[in-house]
């Protein structure tokens, strides 16, 4: 019997267009994700193959979650379908058994969904073999990951989702409530994931995920590229336990469905909310004949405007009261709360909920729902009358076509605005609850209106599509196609906003700079697309269908008649407006500014590299002095520079060639080039080679004067952030000052893009052994150390700052001038800043410390001063004296999130630190840490500037990390450091999996952040632990004393290592090799720990431990190593209920243990609680949680 249901239903399902449409759409997504980077479904990154087994399994897992909405239709929907179409009474009155009915239907739905997944799998399979895919990123084909994905994710998830939703459908009897259930389930799943991310109970976190993807990502999160490419994780306890649990739950749900399903008429049960259905009106009273009164039609007919308004009210209220709207709103609010309570965290520390961040969070986690809402309600609104079968009544009423269209457009706009208002309300509540940040209503208003625009435009477009197609589902389909086409266009590098509806330049907000100059370009694009939408609306009212849907022939005829008269005039006017603004935009983006599609930009870069790489690092006179008058005009966003370079031939040979490199997009004029012959002059790239008539003798000097004019005209297509701003200008010399020689910063780093353009493997840095490269420091080949002096002017209300000490400041003709001069040579690396700042002053032993901050962000200014003081204390006592006489920290707009150290000048983004919420003293104080890190650069960077070879950023960044950690440890203790290092370990292990080229050992780091920051912290902290703080600092001090301010040949990481080795004992030399010159991992764990009290009161402890040491190559392939170092073993006591930070060490020892499993026995005096190998996680161990184990008392 069940087979009959199964057969019938499967045939029905397979004939449904929806099944094939969703299968194709999802397969296309899968195909896109596996063949491009534009669609991300847990796809591959870096060196991981596009068809790596882990990637395939991940994609299938993600799709099994995404498909939940489809499963709703094909499995849960089948239970309700019969009563929806009204055939249920006929079916349920036959002598069938409900088990057969349900099982047959369920299996048919399951099979239908599997069909969808087979097409998805096909999409994933063929994607990597497309001609545009970089073949180096495609591994051999294997069916195994697909089988794994189906067995682990697809089947169990379909089973679970299907039976869960079927249960929901069987009990609620309402498709709408099933969808509500889906949404609520999603929210709980997302929120649950966010809140269990940090919990220590790994089992719980992994088990409560019904989709099993978290168990999988836990098993693969620290996979290196090689591991991801090679195979799948073993089916360990986590994955199996999770799958078993949820399959059981699924079967339970199904069993419950079998019991609870009642084959009776829907709606005969009691209402879910207890509201009794009102009895059907039975009114037998005869018609009371009111005297028939002839109504005089009022002379004043209702104006179409009133009609329009009434329809608007009616429709808008209808939407606001509708369940899907409320559900989606609730969903979005929950999603927002989950995201905002985690958002902006750094090292687990929150940020103040400033309004800017609230708006960013709303955009990221709340507003996206609007695209679904406007698409859905465009269909609902247009078809509202027809669905209620009341269309004929209304269509025959004297309403002009435009009135309902305008009303429905307004209703949709109202829906968008109401939705955003709900978001604002949620955000304000969040702000008030967390406290500490002002509620900026005006900003909320502006930000939300700006955020609303694309959704309003999309909504109007959706309405128009519904009107034109006159078929709800085709209308929806076209909307989806529109969205897909936007993605496809950007893949194909068609990224001009003029043809990608409703594209606008971005309009970022910063507390310092507000919406800045971005408003202008944005507004014109909005105007442009508004005209466009208006044109569509005018056309739509002409094609508005009244009554029975007409054939196109008739609709055209009617539309043409409609368009004669006022609407035709409106159409022409808006067409003129559309073309006019379009032309104006084109003039701004493509004539006043350069617009190059992204692939063309890459082509240009490749061409530059091919033509001019030959001139890289050739001998050239070096800059020794820079003097510059820099006029900053913030309000018109102009900068003009009058500069003076002194060049010196530092080589032993005469030099007569100058290679001038200027930015071709800005005007640079050399004022006094000595007499010369032009060898090459490339205007496109601003590259020019001249041969001097009179060669420069060794040590000979040459003075060059130049002017640079930077004007920002009109607006650009992208609205990319700029360094010249109304408030908060920040640019460095790299940006606008003229340069010498080949600029290797232009080179493309992406391997695939390079291969496409016939370029070789990227070279991030010269090899450590490249002696020739030691002629230049890591800050560039143009100069060694320079004398620096500058005069800056800016508008009257701003302060302008550059490295150096203020000599003089004055006002002239409504502008402020500042003259800065540096008293000793600095690196050729300096910045100019100008903004309206508040200034807070402090000092360290009389040395002034100044913080320049925006008046909204006074929160952590004192912490910064304090951090600076503590840093100066430590560094000047442990290393060498501070070379400058002042420290300045300057806030700049949040368009970028970093802090950067220039000589005595530290720009610090408003996005980090300034708004960190340090009210909870348990949190990691990263403001203190970042300040200490940047201060450390005054030594590591501004005293030691290593050669621009491999390992140079270890000298700068890893040592700054080490220095900052020492300052932090002094202030906050070891316990905080362990928390800090846990984050560093996690980020190192995670980020190495997405390495684009090769992972290097620390001393060969090629400016790889996860190595020089994250691994650097771990390596130096462990080194300090192994050889002691004093010897290490002694080594660093000697290194500084010998190498600071040195010129070519510059120092390298090899030099530093030899200083460290000199201070380290003989038995640590091997460790230093492992730490710096190799990539080594440990896999240490306690497998068993028991204790037994002896008659004398002491405790005998037996522990089983497992030790392993592995070495990885640059791609992450690991090979085992002999376990050749002592391991720290410790036993702890803890008062019942106490936390880890209150524990006491009963016994601790570093002892030599063999690799693999071994048993350790020892005796302690008190009752032990816990023990561990490497209990403080100082080693790089992928599973740090199994290093400790609670002792079971026998």
């Amino acid at each position: 019997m069940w087979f009959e249901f199964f057969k019938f239903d499967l045939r029905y399902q397979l004939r449904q267009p929806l099944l094939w449409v969703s299968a194709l759409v999802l397969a296309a997504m899968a195909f896109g994700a596996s063949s491009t980077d534009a669609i991300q479904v847990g796809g591959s990154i870096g060196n991981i193959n596009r068809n790596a087994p882990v990637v395939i399994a991940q994609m299938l897992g993600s799709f099994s979650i995404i498909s939940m909405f489809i499963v709703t239709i094909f499995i849960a929907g089948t239970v309700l379908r019969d009563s929806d179409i009204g055939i249920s009474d006929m079916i349920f009155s036959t002598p069938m058994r409900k088990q057969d009915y349900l099982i047959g239907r369920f299996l048919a739905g399951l099979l239908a969904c599997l069909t969808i997944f087979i097409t998805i799998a096909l999409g994933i399979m063929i994607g990597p073999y497309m001609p545009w895919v970089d073949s180096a990123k495609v591994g051999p084909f294997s069916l195994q990951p697909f089988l794994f994905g189906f067995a682990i994710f697809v089947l169990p998830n379909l089973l679970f989702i299907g039976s869960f939703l079927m249960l929901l459908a069987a009990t609620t009897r309402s498709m709408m409530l099933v969808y509500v259930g889906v949404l609520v389930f999603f929210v709980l799943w997302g929120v649950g994931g966010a809140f269990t991310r940090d919990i220590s109970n790994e089992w719980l976190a992994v088990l409560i995920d019904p989709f099993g993807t978290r168990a999988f990502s836990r098993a693969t999160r620290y996979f290196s590229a090689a591991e991801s490419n090679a195979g799948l994780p073993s089916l360990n306890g986590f994955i199996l336990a999770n799958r078993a649990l949820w399959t059981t739950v699924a079967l339970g749900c199904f069993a419950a469905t079998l019991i609870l399903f009642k084959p009776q008429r829907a709606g005969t049960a009691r209402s879910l909310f207890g509201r009794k259905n009102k009895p059907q009106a039975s009114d037998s009273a005869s018609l009371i004949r009111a005297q028939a009164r002839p109504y005089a039609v009022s002379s004043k007919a209702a104006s179409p405007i009133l009609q329009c308004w009434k329809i608007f009210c009616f429709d808008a209220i209808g939407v606001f009261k509708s369940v899907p709207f409320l559900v989606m709103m609730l969903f979005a609010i929950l999603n927002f709360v989950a995201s905002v309570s985690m958002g902006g965290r750094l090292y687990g520390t929150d940020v103040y909920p400033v309004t800017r961040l609230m708006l960013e969070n709303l955009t990221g986690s709340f507003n996206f729902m609007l695209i679904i809402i406007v698409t859905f309600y465009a269909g609902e609104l247009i078809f509202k009358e027809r669905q209620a079968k009341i269309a004929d009544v209304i269509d025959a009423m004297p309403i002009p076509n435009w009135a309902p269209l305008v009303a429905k457009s307004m209703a949709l706009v109202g829906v968008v605005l109401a939705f955003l208002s709900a978001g604002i309300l949620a955000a304000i509540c969040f702000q008030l609850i967390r406290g500490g940040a002002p509620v900026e209503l005006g900003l909320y208003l502006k930000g939300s209106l700006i955020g609303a625009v694309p959704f309003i435009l999309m909504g109007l477009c959706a309405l128009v599509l519904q009107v034109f197609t006159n078929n709800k589902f085709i209308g929806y389909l076209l909307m989806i196609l529109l969205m897909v086409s936007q993605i496809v266009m950007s893949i194909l590098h068609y990224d001009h906003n003029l043809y990608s509806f409703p594209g606008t330049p971005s309009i970022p907000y910063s507390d310092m700079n507000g919406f800045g100059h971005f408003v202008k370009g944005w507004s014109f694009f909005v105007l442009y697309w508004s005209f466009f939408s208006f044109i569509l609306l005018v056309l739509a009212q002409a094609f508005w269908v009244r009554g029975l849907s007409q054939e196109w022939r008739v609709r055209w005829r009617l539309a043409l008649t409609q368009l004669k008269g006022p609407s035709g005039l409106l159409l022409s006017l808006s067409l003129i407006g559309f073309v006019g603004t379009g032309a104006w935009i084109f003039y701004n983006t493509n004539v006043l500014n350069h617009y190059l599609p992204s692939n063309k930009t890459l082509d240009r870069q490749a061409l530059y590299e091919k033509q001019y790489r030959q001139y890289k690092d050739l001998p050239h006179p070096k800059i020794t002095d820079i003097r510059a008058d820099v006029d900053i005009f913030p309000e018109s966003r102009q900068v003009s520079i009058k500069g003076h370079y002194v060049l010196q031939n530092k080589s032993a040979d005469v030099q007569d060639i100058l290679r001038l490199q200027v930015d071709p997009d800005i005007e640079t004029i050399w004022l006094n080039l000595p007499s010369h012959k032009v060898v090459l002059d490339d205007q496109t790239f601003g590259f020019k080679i001249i041969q001097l008539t009179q060669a420069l003798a060794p040590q000979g000097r040459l003075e060059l004067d130049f002017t640079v004019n930077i004007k920002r005209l009109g607006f650009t297509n992208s609205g990319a952030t700029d360094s010249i701003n109304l408030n908060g200008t920040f640019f460095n010399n790299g940006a606008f000052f003229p340069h010498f020689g080949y600029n290797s910063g232009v080179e493309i780093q992406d391997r695939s893009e390079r291969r496409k353009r016939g370029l070789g493997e990227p070279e991030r840095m010269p090899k450590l052994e490249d002696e020739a490269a030691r002629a230049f420091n890591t800050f560039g080949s143009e100069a060694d150390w320079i004398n620096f002096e500058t005069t800056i002017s800016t508008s009257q209300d701003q302060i302008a700052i550059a490295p150096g000490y203020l000599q003089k400041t004055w006002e002239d003709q409504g502008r402020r001038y500042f003259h800065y001069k540096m008293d000793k040579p600095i690196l050729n690396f300096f910045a100019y800043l100008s903004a309206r700042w508040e200034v807070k002053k402090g000092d360290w032993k009389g040395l002034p410390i100044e913080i320049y901050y925006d008046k909204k962000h006074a929160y952590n200014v004192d912490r910064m001063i304090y951090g600076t003081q503590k840093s100066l204390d430590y560094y000047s006592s442990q290393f060498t004296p501070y070379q400058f006489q002042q420290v300045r920290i300057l806030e700049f707009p949040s368009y970028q999130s970093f802090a950067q150290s220039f000589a005595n000048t530290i720009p610090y983004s408003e996005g980090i630190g300034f708004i960190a919420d340090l009210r909870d003293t348990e949190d990691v104080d990263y403001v203190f840490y970042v300040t200490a890190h940047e201060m450390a650069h005054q030594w590591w960077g501004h005293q030691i500037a290593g050669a621009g070879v491999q390992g140079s950023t270890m000298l700068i960044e890893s040592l700054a990390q080490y220095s900052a950690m020492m300052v932090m440890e002094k202030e906050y203790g070891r316990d905080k450091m362990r928390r800090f290092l846990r984050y560093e370990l996690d980020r190192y292990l995670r980020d190495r999996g997405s390495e684009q080229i090769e992972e290097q050992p620390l001393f060969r780091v090629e400016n790889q952040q996860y190595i020089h920051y994250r691994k650097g912290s771990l390596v130096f902290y462990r080194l300090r632990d192994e050889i002691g703080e004093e010897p290490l600092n002694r080594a660093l001090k000697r290194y500084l004393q010998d190498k600071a301010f040195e010129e070519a040949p510059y120092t390298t990481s090899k030099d530093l290592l030899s200083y460290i080795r000199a201070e380290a004992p003989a038995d640590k030399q091997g460790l230093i090799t492992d730490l710096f010159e190799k990539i080594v991992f440990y896999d240490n764990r306690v497998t068993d720990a028991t204790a037994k009290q002896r008659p004398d009161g002491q405790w005998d402890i037996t522990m089983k431990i497992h030790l392993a040491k592995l070495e990885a190559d640059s791609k992450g392939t690991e090979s085992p190593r002999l376990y050749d170092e002592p391991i720290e073993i410790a036993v702890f006591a803890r008062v019942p209920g106490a936390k880890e930070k209150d524990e006491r060490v009963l016994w601790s020892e570093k002892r030599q243990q063999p690799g693999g499993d071994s048993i350790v026995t020892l005796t302690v005096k008190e009752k032990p609680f816990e023990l561990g190998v490497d209990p403080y996680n100082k080693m790089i161990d992928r599973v740090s949680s199994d290093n400790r184990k609670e002792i079971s008392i026998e």
Partner: protein
Amino acid sequence: MLSIKQLNKTYANGVHALNDVSLEIPNGLFGLLGPNGAGKSSLMRTIATLQEPDSGQIHFKGLDVLQDKEGLRRQLGYLPQDFGVYPKVCAEDLLHHFAVLKGIGIKSERKEQVESLLRQTNLWEARKRGLGTYSGGMRQRFGIAQALLGSPKLVIVDEPTAGLDPDERNRFLNLLAEIGEQVVVILSTHIVEDVTDLCPRMAMICKGQVLIQGEPQAAIASLKNKVWRKSIQKAALADYQGRFNVLSTRLVAGKPQINVFAETQPEEGFTMVEPDLEDVYFLQLRNSQARQAGASQGAVHVV
């Protein structure tokens, strides 16, 4: 008053819904009679400006309806055959909403009309209730209330009595008759008595063609002395149908009783009966079917 000339409409699927339809409809109740699928609804929708004819003309009181749809809509009340409501909206609210859409600009006037119509259709007590809770009859009365908003000069009601109980139906028709004293009311139905009882004028259409139009009584009179009745055995029915122009068959006490159209007594046992509109209706249908079949029998046209 309402004059329809040579209206034609063929649907995309080839159905000839309106075939050269011409009608003259004066003030008063006008019955439009025809079997299911005859084109009644197509005709009414076309008059109600909801559908474009392929060709033809419609004039209402000098107004060219196809050119000035807006003009007609201002004086139109339309109750479609199968209409729905928003289940959660109450009758009064929806009627107010419709009143605006019908163009009643002044609020007080809207209020007065809505109230009066709610009373007139006996929905006053139930005005605050969601329309979803209404019975079929109440909903139909709501429909007529809606159609009467704004004092229409032309009221079109499409099969309004389908699904109503006899009581409800009578009341409904009375209401229509009353309205029909002042304006044009077109009532489409396939229930012959409705037309006989109420409509001073009527038309019959089938397969998109007007079979006859005129006064029901005149049509009935034209069959005077030509309708014969006989009770027969069930087994003989086919034989009779083959030999005579059988208009209708009905079972009386389990035995078929047939009405036959004939100039003289067709056979022993037939008695002459007073014709009614149903006989006219069936005769027209039979003739029309016969014409379709090719064996033309010369249609009877009455004036």
